[in-house]
């Protein structure tokens, strides 16, 4: 009897360990930094209207402009290192024919222009959101973030954090195919 009692703690612990191990190694769960889904997904994109970053940068857009076609909206800033890391993938997406809009978040106009000149501007249009009012409306918690808006102007997907090749392959592209196919 006493033997059984002293084994109990280690047995319970082994079971707990199994549970936590299973959760940690669950790839699905871990590859998704926005595990708590945004309450905005499935809802119409909140109304915003943004000016252009500068005269020579295409842009200024409002929520109305996003309708009619599937659009990717990428929130970025020139001071944001992860944005620079994901920039080639955004550029690739645009080159492959996706319609990509940008929201320039809490930036200075001159800094943004320099950054776009140096690293290329894949965006069809960029909205300048210096005071982050629009980002706030859209529930942006940090940069970069990427939204997929369907043809009706509904937020179909949101990714928080930089886009990596895995995220692109496993999340973004399937989601785009799903919306465009359906």
């Amino acid at each position, binding site marked *: 009897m*006493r*033997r059984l009692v*002293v*084994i109990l*703690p*280690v047995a319970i*612990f*082994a079971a*707990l*360990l199994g*549970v*936590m*191990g*299973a*959760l*940690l*190694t*669950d790839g*699905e*769960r*871990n590859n998704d930094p926005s*595990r*708590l889904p945004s309450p905005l997904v499935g809802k119409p994109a909140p109304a915003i209207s943004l000016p252009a970053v500068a005269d020579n940068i295409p842009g200024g857009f409002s929520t109305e402009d996003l309708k009619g076609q599937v659009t990717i909206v990428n929130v970025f800033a020139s001071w944001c*290192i992860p944005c620079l890391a994901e920039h080639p993938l955004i550029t690739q997406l645009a080159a492959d024919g996706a319609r990509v809009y940008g929201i320039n*978040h*809490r930036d200075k106009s001159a800094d943004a222009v320099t950054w776009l000149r140096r690293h290329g501007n894949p965006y069809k249009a960029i909205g300048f959101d210096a005071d*982050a009012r629009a*980002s706030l409306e859209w529930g*942006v*918690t*940090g*940069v970069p973030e990427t939204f997929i808006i369907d043809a009706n102007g509904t937020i179909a997907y949101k990714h928080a954090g930089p886009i990596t090749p895995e995220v692109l392959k496993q999340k973004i592209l399937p989601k785009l195919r799903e919306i465009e196919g359906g």
Partner: protein
Amino acid sequence: MIAEIGQYVLIAALVLAAVQAIVPLWGAARGDAGLMMVGDRTAIAQAAALLIAFAALTHGFVTSDFSLSVVFQNSHSLKPMLYKVSGVWGNHEGSMLLWVLVLALFSAAVAVYGRNLPPTLKARVLSIQAMIGFAFLAFIIFTSNPFARLSPAPLDGTGLNPLLQDPGLAFHPPLLYLGYVGFSMAFSFAIAALIEGRVDAAWGRWVRPWTLAAWTFLTGGIALGSWWAYYELGWGGWWFWDPVENASFMPWLFGTALLHSSIVVEKRDALKSWTILLAILTFSMSLLGTFLVRSGVLTSVHAFATDPERGVFILAILAIAIGGALTLFAVRAPGMKGGGLFAPASREGALIANNMLLTLAAATVLLGTLYPLILEALSGGETRVSVGPPFFNATFGPIMVPLVLLMAIGPLMAWKRGNLRTASRKIIPAAIAALLAIGVTFLAVPDGPGLAPFAMGLAAWLAAGTIAEWGGRIKLFSSPPSVSWRRLSGQPRSASGMSLAHLGLAIMIVGITGSSAWRTELVTTLSPGETVEGAGYAVTLESVTEGRGPNYSFERATLRIEEDGELVTTMHTERRFFPIANQTTTEAGIRTTLLSDLYGVIGERGRTPETADAWTVRFFVNPLVPWIWLGALVMVFGGFLSLSDRRHRVGAPRRAANTAPPANPPTQPLPAPAE
């Protein structure tokens, strides 16, 4: 350059830990005093190395060296100096470095002050400490290197989480870690005792001060954290049963149980295997807390950078440390002989009941914290639930009631065989006080929740019972004052510390009851100049001004609070926006008297054109809430008072010898002969 020195000494500490883990243990097995002595030297060297590493990281933060990845991510050149320094441990890498530093300091303390420990026990304790240290140093070096460089170095940092930019929180983690990691001492003593196969009264005496120190720090750390949550989060509450809060509360509950059961080991040579198990469980909870917070399996307001790779590493440490310890326990515990016999109605009996209830409470909190995870794992990620305050309030409260009832009775019972009749005669003042408190509360607040008067009665019961017991010890009123005075000065500090700690809990219960039962809340939208009446007060939003702090912009509201047309106070509350972190925090306006807090918070400004000149204002009246922290303060003070008792520092068998000046100069600590 300085960061590279930090990197080198960190690796040196890892090597030292490896040596310390193996050599003294081997020496103890062979009975080789020379090998056992190695542990002392490495423990001190390891602490020195980690102090240098910590200083190097602090240097990086203070000088804003953004070529260090951690500094870039967690600091900013505009940040005030205090928060540059607290930023050292306000992030994952730095806080883990602080964790191992505290561990090494505790080991060094054993090496320096543990001269009267039997050499084999001391060698084994240091060896176990080093194993823990090795695991966490490897974790730091391989997955969370605080000295990783960025190239090219960014021009400025990305700031500290602004919520953490607060004096209360600057000192919360170090205190909490002193508590968490302090329990590693009890753990190492337990494992060493299992290896030696010997637990006796002397063992209990050695473990107690370490447990007491850890418990005192942890109490202070938790209280500071809850105080911070109270005034900074702006929700008017002070405890949210958040998983991260629970992670610090579980070691506290087990540690409290351990504190009491080790008394039984020391005084009565009983409850040995149970105490060993508690020592293992208490530190396991500290490790589990570290895992839950660091691995990201839980999502919480406190969550730091989460990373599954780190999670797997910590889980492996957990598996080896806890799994290994519990297995060793399963093998060795049946061989341990129980000591003194005692009747159910005795001090031992009361302490066992205390242990049962505290363990049950800890198990409840553990279940509530892990249940969402277990359910998620079993359902394959389909079912996600969160367990909130209703569960904890419904389960935790009822366990606390008998515990508090018992707390007043236990100290009145004699060891071995208590006399129930004597004890019940001594408890009469407590019963009278409880009835009085229930009656007075009921008359004073007739329309409050029905259970509140009984909770106040419980607090009065505990306070009166504790004071009566203390009065009995010094023969207060039953003998001339001069005798009482002499007895008072002759009281062992540990006994007075116990009384104080119990009294602190009674004070805290009053605060908890007041703030949860009679709190009133007023939420409204106000434009400057407007007044709203409610909660017995008239609240006027006088003005809202905008301004800039060192690294944030703010809206500062001035609230005028009036009662019956008379000005009570004007308070300021701020809503701060940190552009670099893109985060908003609130600073509550609090006007406190000992009896209640008036608590005002400004919320968001209206978004639509019609409401653009109006702000959400929340106003709370929190009765008795300061008593919560007052109680915690009294508990911490009781802990330190008890810790200062020289009986904790002097080994029982060597008491006579130690009254003479030490024979060995302190610079050459020779292992003391075992009895």
